[in-house]
């Protein structure tokens, strides 16, 4: 087949299609969104299901349903999405997979677009399932195809762990002939009903499979060991894209070390042992947390061997790696280059677009809160988190999706007033309904402002479930008093009226919900361009 240009995310998506995917689900999140965007574009022609879900947990549960029905399913998300989906994820190793089930998780070292840089390999280990970590686009494609076969062969879900630099890097791949979707018989009810009597047995099954997973990892051709013999006392263990940074510097190494590239988990123990037998010092190079390094080191270290990496301070513990970090850890001199300018360069942080509806809402809120200097604004995640920066400086928190409403309620419960939550429409659909249900039933004295811009703007304008009329009905349905469910249009000309309305609701001694609705201007522009 012809060369195909793809982002790392898209290489995974294409691999899944060529493996006979029946259905895929996801919730948007950088750097994973492009997996689903590619699948949605391809699904129209190819006839599989590819849909945005309301959140990652629901996405994973739908994928589980597909697997139960004997078909191949993929679910993709950003790293923190797996926290939301952790419940079905961990339990899915006990139910096992029937049709191949592949969980694609994209980590974001350096937090380019995230609240943290957690490492999903720990989740794979936690659930005791097999995990692939590709280092290139071709590997991302091949591993995804193999992941489906492996998932069915061992009867467990399989994880593909990506990181931003691969997810959002573009290169070409050579695809292979696709296989057609097939159907397996549906799942066995005694496997899938996790009553204690079944779950205990199923857990034992997972434990018994570990030996096989380790063997598969040891035999995987994606792991490569090159022994230098006695010529070098140094060994390098590198995984995923970190291995590329070693190879980038390889030509400059005078004496070539032994080298083990790890691409699969559980860790290929035999290969690691072979390497360790030949070297005095090992340098572990991995993107994310020191997962391999910590496993290798254990509590006591290995007598007679030096283990270097992130824990030893040879590489940074936070942020993404670069070829330069690895160069230094390899003891190579920095390359000649132009110096940085002597004076610092003004930083240019992201900001709300000119004319963004959120900007108007924040200006209104600031106006309304002039009389309440002690007000606390619990925010959430989306474009509107940029309201943290001047000139708005309008929000006090951002923790995880949906946290705004729960936190505002907690503060209100202990007497804080005004306690205000600010949450976007998609974030509300993702995780805002349940805390609002609680606040409505207890009629807690707090104010919730839902910013309905009609889209998931932060991640590129995907569809939002909790928007427009639907949103109003949902809020009403949760039991919010109709008289204190108010709608505003955040436009400069409405500033005074809107501010008065917000003040009124802050003074109401119960729950108010204000929906500020106006379309994201980027989306409006996109639509206009489409019509031209």
């Amino acid at each position, binding site marked *: 087949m012809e*060369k195909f*240009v793809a*982002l790392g995310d898209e290489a995974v998506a294409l691999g899944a299609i060529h493996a006979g995917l029946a259905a895929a689900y996801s919730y948007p999140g*950088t*750097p994973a*969104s*492009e997996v689903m965007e590619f699948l949605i574009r391809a699904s129209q022609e190819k006839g599989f299901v590819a849909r945005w879900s309301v959140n990652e947990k629901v996405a994973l549960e739908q994928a589980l349903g597909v697997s139960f029905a004997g078909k191949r399913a993929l679910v993709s998300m950003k790293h923190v999405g797996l926290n939301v989906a952790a419940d079905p994820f961990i339990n899915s190793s006990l139910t096992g997979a029937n049709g191949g089930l592949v969980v694609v998780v994209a980590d974001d070292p350096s937090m*380019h*677009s995230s609240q943290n840089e957690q490492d999903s390999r720990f989740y794979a280990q936690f659930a005791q399932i097999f995990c692939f970590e590709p280092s290139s686009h071709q590997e991302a494609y091949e591993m995804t195809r193999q992941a489906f076969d492996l998932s069915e062969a061992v009867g467990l879900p399989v994880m593909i762990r990506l990181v931003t*630099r*691969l997810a*959002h*890097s*573009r*290169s*070409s791949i050579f695809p292979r002939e696709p296989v057609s979707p097939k159907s397996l018989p549906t799942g066995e009810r005694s496997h899938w009903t996790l009553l204690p009597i079944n779950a205990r047995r199923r857990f034992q099954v997972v434990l018994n499979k570990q030996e096989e997973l380790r063997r598969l990892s040891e035999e995987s051709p994606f792991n490569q060991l090159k022994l230098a013999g006695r010529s070098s006392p140094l060994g390098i263990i590198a995984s995923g*894209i970190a291995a*590329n*940074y070693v*190879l*980038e*510097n390889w030509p400059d190494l005078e004496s070539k070390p032994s080298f083990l590239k790890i691409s699969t988990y559980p860790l290929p123990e035999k290969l690691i042992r072979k390497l360790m037998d030949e070297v005095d010092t090992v340098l572990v190079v991995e993107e994310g947390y020191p997962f391999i390094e910590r496993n290798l080191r254990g509590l006591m270290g290995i007598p007679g061997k030096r283990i270097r990496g992130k824990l030893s301070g040879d590489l940074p513990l936070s942020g993404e790696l*670069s*070829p*330069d970090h690895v*160069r230094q850890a390899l003891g190579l001199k*920095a*390359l*000649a*280059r*132009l*110096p*940085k*300018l002597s004076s610092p*360069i*003004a*930083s*240019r*942080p*992201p*900001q*709300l*677009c000119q004319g963004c509806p959120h900007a108007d809402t924040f200006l209104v809120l600031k106006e309304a809160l002039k009389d309440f200097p002690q007000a606390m604004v619990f925010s959430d995640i989306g*474009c509107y988190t*940029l309201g943290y920066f001047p000139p708005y400086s309008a929000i006090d928190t951002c923790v995880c999706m949906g946290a705004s409403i729960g936190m505002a309620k907690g503060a209100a419960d202990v007497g804080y007033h005004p306690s205000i939550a600010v949450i976007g429409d998609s974030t509300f659909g993702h995780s805002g309904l349940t805390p609002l249900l609680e606040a409505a039933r207890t009629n807690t004295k707090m104010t919730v402002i839902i910013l309905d811009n009609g889209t998931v703007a*932060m*991640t*590129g304008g995907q569809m939002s479930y909790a928007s427009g009329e639907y949103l109003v009905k949902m809020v009403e349905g949760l039991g919010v008093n109709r008289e204190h469910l108010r709608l505003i249009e955040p436009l400069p000309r409405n500033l005074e009226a809107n501010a008065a309305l917000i003040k009124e609701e802050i003074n109401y001694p119960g729950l108010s919900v204000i929906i500020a609705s106006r379309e994201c201007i980027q989306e409006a522009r996109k639509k206009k361009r489409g019509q031209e």
Partner: protein
Amino acid sequence: MKFDLILAGVGGQGILSIAFVIDRAALLQGLNFKQAEVHGMAQRGGAVQSHLRLSDGPIYSDLIPKGKCDLILAVEPLEALRYLDYLQPEGTVVSSSSPYVNIPDYPPIADLLDSIREIKNHLIINADQIARKAGSGRVQNIVMLGAASLFLPLELDHLLSALKEFFQPRGQKIVDLNLKAFELGRQEARLQLKIN
């Protein structure tokens, strides 16, 4: 052959369009490429950059090592200076002189251009003016691509084919506008470099 470049600009200035055209031209020329791009949060008016690596052999790192970058192509002068420590001593900076001011502490433009002029190999292009001459202030990115094309190890035909392919879905008018922008940018660079 190996050639590494950094595309620099502000979110929304169209550096991913430049990247796409170069990727495609590299493909037409039978070269390998890796291109690391920025999506998500930073795209909202923040500083964005793309590392683009071209080679006729294997490419390992998606990121360019510091000191290996051959060319910085900047659609904005402040952004031209942000990644200088990636540039090899003989590397080139091709920068627009048109500032995109969306921060309160944006430095005086004259200082920025002076700093660019201190770099041994540099080219400063009035992208805004040339883009308007081509027909729209929105095609500054393609003006810059045209100017930088003299330094790229890519054949002109491949770049032009890639450019047409990229803009074709938006109609012939947009294709022509961008071809014009490319041509005028390239002309300006030739003029400044005294190439005929």
